[in-house]
C-alpha cells in the first residue's frame, strides 16, 4: 500500500472514530463514549475485514469489501456472544471483552493461515533469512 493511500485511510478512520465518539457522547459520559467508539471497529469491522481478505483474494471492489467486513463482523459477534452466553448462562462486561478479543484473534489467525504466513515452511524460511542476516 502506498504511503499517501495509508494516510488517507487513517484520516477517514480517525474521522469515523471521532464521529462515533461524538454520537455516543449524546447518551454516555466521556469514558463510556470513548470505550464504545474505540471498541466499535473491533466489534463491527476488523474481524469481518480479515475474514473477507482471507476468503476473497480477488474479485471484490472496495464497496463490497467494506460491506462484507461489516456483515461478517456482525455475524461473528452475534455467534461469539451467543456461544459465551449460552455456555456461561450469565454474560458480563468482561465476558464480552473476552469474546471480542477472541473473535479478533481467531479472525487474524484465519487471515494469516490463508496467506500461508503461519505455515511451518514459511516460518522456517523467515527464521533462516533472519539468522543469515544476523550472521
Amino acid at each position: 500500500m502506498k504511503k499517501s493511500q495509508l494516510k488517507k485511510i487513517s484520516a477517514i478512520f480517525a474521522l469515523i472514530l471521532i464521529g462515533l465518539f461524538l454520537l455516543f457522547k449524546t447518551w454516555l459520559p466521556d469514558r463510556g463514549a470513548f470505550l464504545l467508539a474505540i471498541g466499535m471497529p473491533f466489534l463491527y469491522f476488523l474481524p469481518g475485514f480479515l475474514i473477507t481478505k482471507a476468503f476473497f483474494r480477488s474479485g471484490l471492489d472496495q464497496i463490497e469489501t467494506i460491506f462484507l467486513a461489516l456483515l461478517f463482523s456482525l455475524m461473528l459477534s452475534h455467534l461469539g456472544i451467543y456461544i459465551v452466553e449460552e455456555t456461561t448462562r450469565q454474560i458480563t462486561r468482561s465476558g464480552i471483552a473476552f469474546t471480542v478479543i477472541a473473535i479478533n484473534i481467531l479472525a487474524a489467525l484465519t487471515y494469516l493461515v490463508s496467506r500461508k504466513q503461519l505455515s511451518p515452511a514459511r516460518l522456517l524460511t523467515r527464521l533462516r533469512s533472519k539468522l543469515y542476516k544476523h550472521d
Partner: protein
Amino acid sequence: MGLVSAIQSGTGQRALKAASFLIYLTAIVLVLPGFISWVHRLIFIGYGLFILWVIRDKSANNKSGDADPEIIPGKNFWTALLIFSLLYLFLGRLYMFIRYGASPLGYDTGFYWQYFRLIIINGNIGTAVGSHLTYSSWFPLGFLGLPALTVIHLLHVFHQLLTAGALYFLLRSLPLRKYSFPISVLGVFLFALSINQFMAFWWMFYKQLLAIPFLLLAMGLFFRRSIIAIPVAGLAAAIHLSSAIPLGLALIIFITIQLLICVAKRHLPEKEFIYLILAGLLGSILFIALKGTADIHYYLTLFLKYKGLATNARSWEIEQIRGLFIPFTTFRLNALFYLPFALIGILQLRRFIETRLTERTLLIPITFAASLILVSFPFIHQTRSLIFFDLLLIILAAAPIFHFIKNFRRERHGTVLLGLLCFGFVAFTSRVIWNHEPQLYAAEAAELRVLERQGTAEDLRKIDDYVMVVSSLYTPWAYAFTGFGPTIVPGWLTWDKWDLKMWEEFWFKANNDRRLQLLQMYGDHVIYIFIGEHQLKQVNTPRLKEFIETDPHFTRFSPHIWKYTPHLQDTDSPTNL
C-alpha cells in the same frame, strides 16, 4: 419434430416471444388492484408497453448488426448515484427520528424494549425471550449504558445499510457481463427508494430485517461458489426462519427438478447438484445447532393448527397470523414504478443474466416463483413474505432498468426525460416518507412517561394503580413507556381479566352500568385509561368515548389519559399537563 427443435427454429422463437408478450400484458393488467379507475389502468398499461418497447427496440437493433454506439454514463456517475442512494437510505430512515422524537416507529418497538430490559437486567437472554441470536448484539451496547431505544434503533438503521450492501454484493455476484457495477448501483437505488422497504423498516420488524441481509449475502456467496454461504444461510434462518422459507423452498424445488432430470436421462448427479444437497443439509444442521428444534416445532404447530392458511384463524387473529404488514394490494401499488421492469426481468431473464438451465442463477427465478406463491395466497405470514419478495423484484428489475437507460439515452432529449422520471420516483417516495406519521406521537409518549414510577413519594401513579389501553394498537407502547408496571390490555399480559365478549361489551354496548361492573372486576385499583390520537381520530367506539367523558368516575388526567377512580368520593381534580 421434438419440442426442443421446434423451439430452436425461427417459428418456435417467434411463438415464444408472442407468449412472453401475452404473459407480460396479462400481468400488467392484473397487477393493478380492482379499485383503480380505468383511466389510471390505461395509463399504467401504456407505461408498461412503453418500457417494453424501449427495451425491445435495442435488441432488434443488435440483431441487424448495426447497433448504435453505447452511450452509458461514466463510472463517476454511477459512483455518485451509489453515494446518493446510501445517503438517501440513511437520511430517509433517520428522518422519522428527527421529526417525531425517540420512538417514531411501529408497534413492535415496545416489545423489543421489554426484551432489551429483561436481557440486560438478567445478563442472559433466557427462555422467556425467543430467538437468542438476534438479541446477542444488544449486550455490548447495553452494558456500556446506552438506553434501550437508542440501541434498538441504531442497530435497526445499521441493518438497513447492511441490507443495501448485501444487495449490492448479490447483484455483483450475478453474471451480468460488463454492466455488473451500474446494475448493482441501480439495485441499491431501487432499494433506497422502495416504499415497501421503508414500510418494513417503519413497522419495526427487527428480527426479519436483521435476517434479510444475511439471506442476500448467502445468495451472493452461493453464486460465487463460496462455502461460507452455508453458515451464513444457517445464521439467517436461525435469526428469522420464516424469512428463509422462500429460499429453502426454492432449494427443495431446484434439487427435485435436478433429481427428476437425472432419473429421466439416466445419469449420475453432477458435482454441482451434490454440493447443493450438502449445502442444504449442512445449513439445516447449523440452524438446528443454533436454535434447537423449538422454532421448527413452533412453525409446524402453527402450520398444522391453521392448515397452512391464515384464513382458518379466528377473525381477530387473521391479521396477526398473516404477519401484520401491508396487504398485497398496497404492496403492488407501492411497487408500480419498477414492477414492469421486474416482469421483463423475469420473462427475459436469459437476456439479462448469462445463465444455462443447470447453473446456479436459476435459483433466482425459482425463488421468485416460490415467493410469488407465498404472497399470492393467504398462507401463514403471507404479508411478511412481501418484504423478501420486494427485494426479488428489485433484483430482477435492476438489469432491465439499466438497459432502459442505455437505450433511452440514445434518443433525443432522452436524458432529460430520464432525469424527470428519476426525479418523479424520488419525489414520490420522499412524499410518502414525509407524510408517514408515527404510531405514537412524542406528546403521547410524554403523557405515558408521567405514569412511570420512580419509587419516590412524588410518583403520580401509586404502586397498585393500573394502566389500561382499550386498543391493542397501543399495547406495547403503554406497557413500556409507563415502566412495565401492571397494565391491562386486550388479550395480552397477565393483568387482563376480561375475555373477548367482555371487551366487546366495554367497547360497543350502550349499557354503562355493565361497563362499571366490568371495571369493578379490578377491585379498588385506580386505572389510568389511555386513548391514543389514532384511536380518537377513527372513533369506532363512540359509546365508550362518551361514557369516559361523562361518567363521574372519570377525570381527564391529560389530553389522552383518563383517570378512573372506583369510589366517587376519592375523585381527584383534573391535572393539566
